[in-house]
């Protein structure tokens, strides 16, 4: 490794940073250093601890142990304000701007100057000058709500520069941008480093890291797998491997199941996300009877949109979804339910259940209008109670009574309520999104067993997860999704290939770029 540049001034040095959250070690003895004038990428999967590490640096979190020096001086920031005073500014994924105010007003927000009179024309000039200097083109007088996402991001960057930041932490800055805006952002980043700023670029997208960064540090499950490599010395395959790693895969006991006919058949599915941007682009997948098919991908690559489009919660603008040869594309959710489509939503509390309603009222959510629970116009409370008691016992839901509000349940029990409801409807096709996220080990095992039991009883299961281990141990084959497109399908559990596909290399291109 060449060391010619190592004489460059160290701007930030973080040593053996450890940060714990209840139940997880987000950062485990992490080292990180940033030199003047470089773009240093911080690469890792979701939950690898990238954002946590940078939040520690930016004064949002306090680390349990470890030391930070900024410009050679020890630093321990108690608040983002202190961090910015030391020249460290973070641009978060979610912008913190006031939509109804102008760019300049947003930039001045919270500062001591100007004191009373806003003197906006004067400050507009200053902002415009600064914007010009770094190529961050945005009209200082425009209201934030009128700006595109890319322009809003520039305002956030300007906000930090205006406060005197010379270290900019960009938390997944490209996640919200259109491709042309990404190019523009990269130009801006370059012009900033040319003028002596240093940039931390948090990302899980390999090609972007390869394109923009000088050096790269890779995190995996809170630990550094490689620190400060020169980007030009590594290949994408190396990085993918460092990022995803190769663990001994814990195999759950999986019975042989005769795979039957195709149940779910998706062809060329396209859909928009909530912001109106296309987030599914020609997705074609199928799942057969007695099969668990995994869908791997870093969060936010269209998984939620796919799950919603499959059950009818999101409009498909192109393509088709058929279940057991019934066309259910853009059909009402209820019709899907009648055709045996079932969804375990990613957000248990916000989508999967009604918090203030009882366990009984939550388990009858999908069959309250079916006999025997429905009796004409009436909900038969007795039958509903019997049904809920049955599920409580069968799925071992730990709850004082079936009349208890589900908001009082633990995550594991809440998930059991949802699984009990969904499985008892005997679905032909089930989508499970992140079914074990946030659960403890015992609950995870329980949920996984239930999914396997679905497979054994001949249902088709699509398992959407960010946990590669889980996907590998449960799935019969795995699709990988990246930016709304299926990168390929794997049935031998080749984790390196999955890793590369997760970061944007289509299966057919893997191995073509040469081995480093």
């Amino acid at each position: 490794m060449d060391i010619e540049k190592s004489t460059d001034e160290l701007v930030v040095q973080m040593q053996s940073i450890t940060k714990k959250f209840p139940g997880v070690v987000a950062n485990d003895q992490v080292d990180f250093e940033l030199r003047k004038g470089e773009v240093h990428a911080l690469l890792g999967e979701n939950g690898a601890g990238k954002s946590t590490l940078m939040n520690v640096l930016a004064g949002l979190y306090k680390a349990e142990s470890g030391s930070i020096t900024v410009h050679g001086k020890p630093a321990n920031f108690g608040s983002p304000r202190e961090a910015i005073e030391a020249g460290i500014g973070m641009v978060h994924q979610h912008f913190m701007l006031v939509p109804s105010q102008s760019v300049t007003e947003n930039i001045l927000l919270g500062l001591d100057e100007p004191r009373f009179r806003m003197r906006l024309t004067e400050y507009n000039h200053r902002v415009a000058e600064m914007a010009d200097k770094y190529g961050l083109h945005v009209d200082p007088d425009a209201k934030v709500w009128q700006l595109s996402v890319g322009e809003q991001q520039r305002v956030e960057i300007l906000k930090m520069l205006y406060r005197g930041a010379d270290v900019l932490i960009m938390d997944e800055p490209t996640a919200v941008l259109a491709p042309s805006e990404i190019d523009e952002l990269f130009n801006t980043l370059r012009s900033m480093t040319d003028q002596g700023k240093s940039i931390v670029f948090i990302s899980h997208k390999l090609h972007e890291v390869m394109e923009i960064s000088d050096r790269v540090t890779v995190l995996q499950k809170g630990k550094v797998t490689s620190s400060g490599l020169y980007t030009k010395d590594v290949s994408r395959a190396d990085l993918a491997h460092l990022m995803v790693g190769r663990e001994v895969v814990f195999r759950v006991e999986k019975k042989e199941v005769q795979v039957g006919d195709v149940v779910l058949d998706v062809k060329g599915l396209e859909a928009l996300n909530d912001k109106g941007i296309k987030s599914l682009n020609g997705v074609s997948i199928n799942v057969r009877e007695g099969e668990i098919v995994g869908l791997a991908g870093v969060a936010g690559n269209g998984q939620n949109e796919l799950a919603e489009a499959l059950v009818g919660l999101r409009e498909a603008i192109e393509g088709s979804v058929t279940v057991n040869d019934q066309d259910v594309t853009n059909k009402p959710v209820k019709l899907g339910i009648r055709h045996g489509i079932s969804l375990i939503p990613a957000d248990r509390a916000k989508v999967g259940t009604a918090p203030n309603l009882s366990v009984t009222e939550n388990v009858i959510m999908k069959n309250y209008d079916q006999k025997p629970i429905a009796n004409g116009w009436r909900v038969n409370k007795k039958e509903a109670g019997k049904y809920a008691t049955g599920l409580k016992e069968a799925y071992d839901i730990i709850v004082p009574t079936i009349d208890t509000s589900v908001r009082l349940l633990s995550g594991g029990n809440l998930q059991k309520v949802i699984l009990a409801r969904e499985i008892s409807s005997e679905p032909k096709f089930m989508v499970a999104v992140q079914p074990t996220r946030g659960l403890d080990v015992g609950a995870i095992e329980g949920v996984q067993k239930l999914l396997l039991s679905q497979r054994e009883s001949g249902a088709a299961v699509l398992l959407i997860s960010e946990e590669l281990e889980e996907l590998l141990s449960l799935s019969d084959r795995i699709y990988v999704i990246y930016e709304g497109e299926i990168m390929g399908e794997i049935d031998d559990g080749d984790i390196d290939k999955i890793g590369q596909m997760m970061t944007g290399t289509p299966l057919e291109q893997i191995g073509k770029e040469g081995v480093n």
Partner: protein
Amino acid sequence: MADISVKESAPKWKFPFKIKIENRVDNPPRWLSPVLSLAAVVIALLIGALVIWIAGGDPWAAYTHIAKYSLGSWGVLSDTMVKAIPLMLVGLACSIAFRMKLWNIGAEGQFFLGAFGASMVVLLPVLPMEAPKWQFILVSAGFGMFFGALWGFVPGFLKARYNVNEIISTLMMNYIAIEWNNYFIYGVWSESGFQMSRMFQRNAWLPRLSDLAKRWPFFGGLTTHFGIVFAVVAALILWWVLSKSRWGYEIRLIGDNPRAAEYAGISIKKNIVLVMIVSGALAGLAGASEIMGVVHRLQGAISPGYGYTGIIIAWLAKLNPLAVILASILFGALILAGREVQPSGIPTLIQGLIMVFLIASDFFYRNRVRITRKVED
């Protein structure tokens, strides 16, 4: 969590109790909700008493007066019921909407449109002058409900289709409704230049208890009218719908978590429109029964803000249709006999205080307050 301690000089005395506020981790007991409602009323009355006392009055005398002239005899009790009837119906109208977290504060306007619809039956006329009473009862109630429902449908549709905030639209439509009525009483149906329509003929009036006085002299002079049947029947039906029916389950599910409802395949838009229609129809029925049972003509001042009082009643009853009946009688008494104390001030003040304490009492519903003896450390 709050620690309250009082510091004193030697010997060091410490406030011996610790007050801790924590989130409830279990379902609150069943009795808590009515007890909190009652407490809100009691505290409001106490503060009212304080105000009367400061103003130099005798609170005890004022309250006994209110009680006597609202509940003290069959005659005044009957008058209290007359006040309570429109309150019950608007209280129900608010309850069903609020159950779905649809903030219909347009019951006032729906009430006016209901009154208009019922008047139309007599004044247009829809029914001939000498049509039998039962026809007037049914047709005027039907017209009142239809026009109230129409006034509920508009904001419901706007919310479902264009996501227009129903708080604003229902509130604004109140003014339109009142002006709409004014147009008719100043112009179209004005009786020789007065701002009111002609008096309805007697066979269009809702029957009153006093109509039975010929057979049972006991009912002589009692003004309670047939609207009470509308109100009680509506409360029973609504109670059944909300707690027993499939539709009621859908309303509660949407009210608690619209995203979960959508995921269960329940159409939120359809239900927004339906609930607003039913809510408007109930408020419209209130207007119709007030016109046909009490006022007997279309005029300007037909509501002392019934539609807004309905909001307080719905909350006081914790959106339970049966409790709405009781809450309405309480407010009916307050409105009727309160006038004896002061035409506006104190009784309205008490109403407002009840609302404030009701909202505040929600804190105790969600949190548990523990008072423990401090342990010396």
